């Protein structure tokens, strides 16, 4: 048996919800409701105290040095689990054993005070996160450098831009050096460059052999950083194991395809023919909105011709959602496929993109029907999908760090003898 960092058994957490316990209690409310319950006894029993289990009967183990990603839909109990493990709230039942110093990062900038300067807030926030004064002093310069706000370190943070504020806050948190790091969705803030910096830092921490628990909805980040994944749903453990397979299973189960209702599409064109339905499929023919690098992407679309047309062509464009950059433009002629003349009526087409090597990011699909010289039907953002990093590249750092690169291609590397 190897060393465990965390061992959890039968862990459960119950919350009371509903009218029986309003969020803001006042004495008056309490008096009124107890009077009410005296008068209308039945009413009370029917309403009853509603409870729900945010976590129910969880059991798992985390090895030392493991980077565990926790995934699941909203309300699955991910944050509650982190709160219990960080000792912010106590479990209703069960035991969690933790071996090592815990640092939890459920929010960046906890305890920041707007009136205080950046320097003062670094000390304050670091102390709140559990750092010693001597430790803060030692790391102070590194924190300031990481945050990139050197110039403003003596300015009250109320004058900071929100970006600077978040950078400073994360810089403090990033220099926490616990044996076990618990991170909630903190990377959801800030711009792309900053998020990548955060991911880079997280990776560095993971490589130092620390144990990390990491909640995220960003499957790219999870698959890049984690050595194992735990999937929670309604407070229960659905799966806990290998990264890629768990992520795929989760994504398949919750796959939310984009708005396929053609009434909502933004379209323009002459309109002699229209695209009526579009589907994204994986190589097994199942609907899918998330693809691992190297997988096959299949787009199927139906076209309704309202009149006879002499000659049409189709194009498929991929646009990166974050940059608005068009990264692919495919047409049917690429592979020598011609549609030719078309009668009034419906036809179905399929585009297969084998071995897609687009970078991990979100993409939108633009579909178009062309007659010579004019756009017949141009539909923007008809579907959205996500690419996630797979083991196609053997590097461990996230590909998405390189914000200017959009496409991966296999390459061979070697050292060759020098010739004088």
């Amino acid at each position, binding site marked *: *048996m190897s*060393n*465990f960092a965390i*061992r959890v*058994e039968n862990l459960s957490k119950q*919350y009371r919800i509903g009218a029986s316990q309003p*969020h*803001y*209690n*006042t*004495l*008056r409310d*309490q008096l009124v409701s107890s009077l009410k319950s005296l008068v209308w006894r039945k009413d009370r029993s029917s309403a009853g105290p509603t409870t729900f289990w945010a976590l129910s009967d969880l059991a798992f183990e985390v090895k030392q040095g493991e980077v565990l990603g926790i995934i699941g839909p909203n309300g699955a109990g991910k944050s509650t689990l982190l*709160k*219990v*493990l*960080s*000792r*912010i*709230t*106590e*479990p*209703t*039942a*069960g*035991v*969690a*054993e*933790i*071996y*090592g*110093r*815990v640092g*939890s990062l*459920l*929010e960046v900038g*906890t*305890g920041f*005070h707007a*009136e*205080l300067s950046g320097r*003062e807030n670094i*000390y*304050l926030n670091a*102390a*709140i*996160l*559990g750092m*010693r*004064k001597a430790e803060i002093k030692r790391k102070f310069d590194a924190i300031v450098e990481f945050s990139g706000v050197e110039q403003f370190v003596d300015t009250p943070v109320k004058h900071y831009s929100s970006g600077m504020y978040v950078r400073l806050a994360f810089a403090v948190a990033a220099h926490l050096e616990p*044996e076990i790091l618990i991170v909630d969705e903190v990377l959801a803030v800030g711009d792309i460059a900053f998020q990548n910096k955060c991911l880079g830092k997280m990776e560095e921490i993971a490589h130092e052999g620390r144990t990390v628990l990491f909640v995220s909805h960003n499957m790219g980040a999870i698959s890049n950083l984690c050595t194992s994944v735990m999937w929670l749903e309604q407070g229960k453990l659905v799966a806990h194991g290998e990264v890629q397979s768990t992520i795929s299973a989760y994504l398949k189960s919750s796959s939310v395809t984009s708005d396929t209702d053609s009434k909502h599409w933004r379209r323009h064109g002459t309109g002699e023919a229209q695209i009526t339905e579009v589907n994204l499929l994986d190589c097994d023919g199942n609907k899918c909105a998330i693809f691992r690098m190297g997988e096959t992407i299949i787009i199927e679309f139906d076209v309704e011709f309202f009149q006879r047309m002499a000659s049409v062509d189709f194009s498929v464009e991929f646009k990166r959602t974050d940059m608005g950059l068009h990264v692919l433009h495919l047409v049917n002629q690429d592979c020598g496929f011609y549609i030719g003349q078309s009668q009034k009526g419906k036809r179905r087409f399929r585009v297969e993109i084998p071995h897609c090597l687009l970078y991990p990011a979100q993409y939108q699909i633009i579909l178009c029907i062309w007659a010579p010289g004019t756009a017949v039907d141009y539909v923007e953002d008809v579907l959205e999908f996500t690419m996630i990093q797979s083991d196609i590249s053997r590097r461990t750092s996230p590909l998405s760090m390189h914000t200017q690169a959009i496409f991966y291609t296999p390459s061979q590397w070697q050292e060759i003898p020098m010739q004088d």
Partner: protein
Amino acid sequence: MLVKVSASPAPTSSAPPVSTTGRPHLVIQPRKGFLHIDFGALWQYRELLYFLVWREVKVRYKQTILGSAWAILQPLFTMVIFTAIFGNFARIPSDDLPYPLFAYTALLPWTYFSQAISRSGTSLVDNANMINKVYFPRLIIPLAAVVTPFVDFFLAFLVLLGMMIWFGIAPGWNALALPLFLLLACVTALATSLWLSTLNVKYRDVRHTIPFLMQLWMYASPIAYPVSLIPEKWRLLYSFNPMMGVIEGFRWALLGKQSPDFRVIAMSTAIILALLVGGLIYFKCTEQTFADVI
């Protein structure tokens, strides 16, 4: 929550200990104990206490023109008003002491006390974001709020020294007992605010009650008038107020007034300790649900 921190793993009923070398071991499970104060954790987090106090002191007079002069002006103005109304117009006796000195000596511990209560009473809710996001011994929050007004107290104390020189009154050996009375004021504030701040987490009415409470409490304390004004038959009831002991103690220690009834002080100390223990139990029992209800 029962939290054990030990260098070597402690065996639990459910599972044999896993071999670890020197890493701290922590067990998180529903709390079973009645009163369990982890003094070790409090000590471990002493620097956080320092930083919270430091934050409050720093922030307190930011963006004010007069800055920390406010610490002196508040008791000073109250003293001037009291002297004008109670000393000059109402001619309230002041035990043969100059009325300004008589009032100011009482206002010092009182100002400390009322500030401590009004900060501490709402402190948990005011720091809700911290409670929701970070672990630390929750006791540190009301503790910091009770410690912070000491800074104002010491500034205002300098004025008292000046006044004593002006009126030509030198303190005797009694002055050495002053820290004890200050401690009594501090413990009274802590005990009261443990109740208030914990209640305030669940019942936000407390926030609105505190100003009333403090006003009432002030009139029930011998600040503007001497204890001798209270009819004999009410004295016993009156001395249940621990601040009476504190104020009388201050006057005795600094101004050499006749010594306070130490039986009364012993009684108020006992009341305070009971209140403190009760407050701690209540605080500890609800502590783990703070993050859920706040």
